[in-house]
């Protein structure tokens, strides 16, 4: 670098490498650098998507249909899975314990026969349909089926909204004959 600036010598002419050869070497080097950087970048991005997830399973069994009393709300799974299991004359359905107003967890008030949200006072019937307070829509139901061993299987990955007509879906309600 220094020699060229003094202007006392002509531009250095390499004996080993031509101008064209130098440029192709530089291009090859940059291509390799770009390729390895891209590979590393992709691998790095992949690093953030682990092969094994530790999130809780979305499906779980809650017991045999006969374990649930007719006309009662079962609160045993509220804390662990955030779900109420309700049994009526026709069958079983599962209600997600998330208030449709702002996401609090309502309480089941046995004496008043309703779900009541402690945050803003939204009330829901045993069916999950809202009737008081600010909640704009009914509680959501979850997929219920019978597992191979005859137990009730709840799937939290699939929700059913009343206002969308999804409670008509056979999987939103486990019919027991």
């Amino acid at each position, binding site marked *: 670098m*220094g020699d060229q600036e003094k202007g006392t010598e002509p531009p250095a002419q390499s004996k080993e490498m031509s101008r064209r050869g130098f440029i192709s070497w530089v291009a090859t080097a940059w291509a390799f650098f770009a390729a390895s950087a891209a590979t590393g970048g992709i691998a790095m991005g992949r*690093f953030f998507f682990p092969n094994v997830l530790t999130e809780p399973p979305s499906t779980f069994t809650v017991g045999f249909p006969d374990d649930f009393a007719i006309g009662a709300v079962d609160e045993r799974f509220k804390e662990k899975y955030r779900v109420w299991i309700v049994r009526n004359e026709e069958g079983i359905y599962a209600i997600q314990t998330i208030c449709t107003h702002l996401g609090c967890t309502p309480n089941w008030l046995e004496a008043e026969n309703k779900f009541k949200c402690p945050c803003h006072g939204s009330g829901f019937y045993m069916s999950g349909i809202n009737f008081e307070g600010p909640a704009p829509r009914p509680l959501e139901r979850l997929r219920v089926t019978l597992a191979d061993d005859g137990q009730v299987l709840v799937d939290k990955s699939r929700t059913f909204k009343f206002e969308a007509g999804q409670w008509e879906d056979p999987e939103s309600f486990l019919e027991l004959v």
Partner: protein
Amino acid sequence: MQKVTTFVTNLWEATTESQIWKAIFRHGAPTSNRNRVLVVMSNVFLHLHPVKSRKAGIKLRYTWCMGGITFFLFLVLTFTGLLLMFYYRPTVEYAYADIVDLREHVPLGIMRELHRWGAHAMVITVWLHMFRVFMTGSYKPPREFNWGVGVVLLVLTLLLSFTGYLLPWDQLAIWAITVGSNMARATPLVGHEGPLAAALRLGDISLVHAGNDARFILLGSRVVGDSTLLRFYVLHCVGLPLAAAFLMAVHFWRVRKDGGISGPM
């Protein structure tokens, strides 16, 4: 071909004339000596580096590039360590399982190995850098202060290696740290088995004991346990790297201020 050339030229001019470009680059292309100096001086990363280097200073046979390789390894370790922090939890319950999972449950399973090999390599290159500096006499005035900074950086590197060694929480790690930290028992005055510690007493009560001496500060308890793991983790990921980065900035800056990389005698 003519059109393409014109287009590229126009695009280049439009880019370099734009306010964004001019806001980032305060100088022209490095085609003159003045602009070459400005490139280094006006860049926060480059300005630690001297504007001009001696020809001998960049000779691989003279420097071995050992300081540069050490710094590069520090950057690699910082980056891979940051990635490992996304999966590793420093508790007795999870630490070992997370280390195993990092190999088997996470893509790019060699990330932990990259970090470990890099750490071993950095300890080696730091020693070789020191050896080179010693053999070329580069510790002599006016560079004696920077030699001192370098010695502290060597100690920090070894401490980083030592603290990182515990984090996998396998038997090797636990007993290595148990044995290693036992040395702190013998610290003069502040180690409870060290010289003069017995003299620090009020009547029958000894002021330095196993529950408050230098070893206790390191471990956070009398034995290597949960609190030790957390202390070493915080030191390894935050405390020591910050100290090392700070001293590295001083180290590089002093190389420049003390007359650049020393030349052959």
